[in-house]
């Protein structure tokens, strides 16, 4: 292609505290092209985005905007050149309204005051593009994660960008929302917008993107048109070796006694749910994002008020009334939003690994540091969390943080693991480790409940899958009839779901 790029990095290197994060990286974003940026967590993708948007200054090399080279591009320069970034969630201010979030930092003014009328009009236009019909005045806090992600994208579109950078836009989107996004990106491409697209979902990338740059440990390992590349090639370029199979062999466990059974579970979101959880099973929960999956897990975990017609947890009647009670019954919960709900970011890795044990132990007993360290080191070994455990947990990559959030429950020997989208934003290698681990735990006779927005995961890992829609379970699909089509069809409410069930 001979088109001149709008935005390009030329031979960029970046160091953090003496560690090289990027080495001599070049990338060129051309108008009318969807450009994929691939790499495992920690490969340097976020750093590169930050350099392209002016948030970080490269240690050597430069950024070129419309042919003009900047040694130190400022965020202002980048904005003026029409570069907009849709961050991977949490870029939003949760207490202010959707419209204000969309326009934040770029409010239309009249007589020096914010022109709310104009803001609402333009925000509405941006939100229409991403297919959001929520009330503009409602706070972002009220939205489920997937919708928040769409607001984040609308926020980038609000600026009518010439270069649009999307950092893992689909990691928390449902199949339907992802489809809307795909359509939108294709339209933007035809209008000549340069798009940089970061995602862990290879199928999606291969379908959508024209060009691909692969980063591995801060070095570009591929920079070429997408045509003629297959998924295995890409994984090899990211990981540096053959990925083999992502999912472990599925081996059914013989002893599948019910361990939890609930009938008529209802709450403000849930509508009359019947559910049975069995030992030795990975039980999937699918559906579009925000159909009550999280409420279901939290209700079983005693963290949300709910009622039921009948409930038995490990032989005892009734729903757990508190998280403590649920823990005592052998339930453990790994949240989707690990930074806010799962971990204490500023505390040490070892300390995070011990937290449920602190909650369980007698309040005024003496802690035994030696035993704590031994246990933490064992857990870290088993979950392949490398290095110094006295570091703050926030220095770990997303995948390793997820392993900590999961590993901390193991000392309590939980019988039922409730997992809320455990592989969201996690790199391929860690995903594979987590999959293997879940199968192993099921093999040991634990019950795994896996709510996931990643449909292939449900198909390949689960013994059966319940699909939720609007607070109900609309289909129960057994292993032999599991397929992506069956799950998607049931989530969208297609008639075939009944047949599959």
């Amino acid at each position, binding site marked *: 292609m001979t088109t001149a790029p709008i935005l390009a990095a030329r031979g960029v290197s970046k160091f953090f505290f003496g560690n090289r994060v990027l080495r001599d990286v070049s990338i060129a974003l051309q108008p009318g092209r969807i450009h994929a940026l691939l790499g495992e967590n920690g490969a340097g993708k976020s750093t590169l985005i930050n350099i392209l948007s002016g948030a970080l200054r490269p240690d050597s090399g430069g950024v070129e905007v419309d042919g003009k080279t900047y040694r130190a591009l400022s965020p202002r320069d980048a904005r003026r050149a029409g570069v907009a970034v849709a961050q991977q969630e949490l870029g939003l201010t949760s207490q202010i309204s959707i419209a204000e979030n969309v326009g934040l930092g770029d409010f239309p003014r009249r007589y020096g005051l914010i022109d709310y009328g104009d803001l609402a009009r333009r925000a509405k236009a941006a939100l229409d593009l991403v297919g959001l019909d929520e009330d503009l005045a409602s706070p972002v806090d009220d939205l489920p994660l997937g919708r928040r992600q769409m607001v984040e994208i609308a926020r980038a579109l609000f600026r009518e960008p010439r270069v649009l950078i999307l950092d893992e836009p689909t990691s928390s989107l449902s199949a339907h929302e992802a489809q809307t996004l795909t359509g939108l990106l294709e339209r933007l491409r035809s209008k000549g917008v340069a798009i940089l697209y970061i995602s862990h979902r290879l199928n999606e990338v291969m379908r959508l993107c024209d060009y691909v740059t692969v980063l591995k440990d801060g070095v570009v390992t591929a920079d070429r048109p997408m045509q003629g590349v297959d998924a295995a090639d890409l994984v090899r370029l990211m990981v540096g070796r053959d990925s083999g199979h992502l999912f472990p062999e599925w081996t059914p466990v013989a002893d599948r006694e019910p361990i939890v059974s609930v009938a008529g579970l209802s709450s403000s979101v849930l509508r009359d749910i019947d559910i049975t959880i069995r030992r030795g099973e990975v039980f999937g929960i699918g559906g579009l994002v925000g159909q009550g999956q999280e409420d279901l897990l939290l209700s079983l975990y005693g963290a949300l008020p709910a009622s039921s017609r009948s409930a038995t947890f490990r032989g005892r009647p009734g729903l757990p009334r508190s998280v403590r009670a649920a823990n005592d019954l052998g339930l453990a919960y790994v949240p989707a939003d690990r930074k*806010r709900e799962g971990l204490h970011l*500023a505390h040490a890795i070892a300390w995070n690994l011990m937290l449920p044990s602190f909650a369980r132990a007698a309040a005024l007993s*003496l802690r035994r540091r030696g035993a704590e360290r031994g246990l933490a080191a064992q857990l870290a070994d088993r979950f392949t969390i490398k290095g*110094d455990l006295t570091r703050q947990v926030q220095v770990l990559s997303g995948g390793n943080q997820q392993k900590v959030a999961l590993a901390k429950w193991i000392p309590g020997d939980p019988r039922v693991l409730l997992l809320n989208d455990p592989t969201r934003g996690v790199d391929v290698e860690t995903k594979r480790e987590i999959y293997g681990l879940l199968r192993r735990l099921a093999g040991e006779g634990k019950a795994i409940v896996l709510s996931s927005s990643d449909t292939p995961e449900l198909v390949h890992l689960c013994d059966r899958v319940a699909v939720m829609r609007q607070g109900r379970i609309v289909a129960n699909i057994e292993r032999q009839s599991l397929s992506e089509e069956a799950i998607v069809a049931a989530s969208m409410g297609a008639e075939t779901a009944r047949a599959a069930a």
Partner: protein
Amino acid sequence: MSLSDPVRFPRVRARAILGSRPFLTVLLVAAVWIAASFAKPGFGAFGHLRYLFELGAVVGLVAIGQTFVVIAGGIDLSVGAIITVSAVGAPLVAIPGDGSGAFAILAILAAATAIGFLNGLGVALLRAHPMIMTLAMATFLQGLLILIAGGSAVSAQNPLLEWLGDARPGGVPAGVIVWIFASALALAALHATPFGARVFALGANPLASTLSGIDARATTIAVYAISGFASGVTGLLLLGMNGQGYVGIGDPYLLSSIAAVVLGGTSILGGAGTYAGTIPGAILLVTITALITVVNASPGWRSILFGALVLALLLLSGREARRR
């Protein structure tokens, strides 16, 4: 096998300790003391320094409770009022048959703890903001004091408290001995028990703590009860040292307790800190008060000077590092 694994748990470096906030606060105290001894003869005399520790014990004891509450992510604005209630209340609850005064002491400590417990209930169950809850409690207590004690000072006839205020076994003031024991208990509870870990967890991230099985309500109620108890002890010690209690006796200790906690490096946002820093923080505060007293100024100017100096010291000893 991995107990002493240097990769998993590297040895703590001397530099990390020397650069820690508690240690820096100790250095600051030392520097102020050395400067003051040169500037004013007699400041560095043993008797005077011992006196400073005696005053420091009062601030240090209130600040025990404040440290727990602040680390748990709250704040207790009722400590001054609880001190006053204890100091004024102890003579009132004396009963004739109680020669040693032990009954009055136990009754007051129970009452102070109960007040803290109520603060905790309000914060944990009614979900009142800690500032509102404890400020309302303080106002309530002040009204109560005016009703029962009027405006007059009450003298204590309590042998145990008199001993606490005056005795110096082995040359060490009894109040300082109480402070040393209480400090040891506080440090152990914070850093060597699961309860302490829960307090840190709650202050750092309440949501993640609850989802990890920590009983946030019980922990919250416990820290406010500890603060009530610590304020009760402080009130009794003050009464012993002063000989009489009056309305307003506890007022200066509200700012002091919070300032001592923050000067010692505990995050006002919760989740991080240690009582080991509060100890030199308390000493630093009483040192400033003593220095201001020798400057011959009116009470109004002293108060202004004290407030300004506390602010300056906080800026000097490092502001809150930005988080997130």
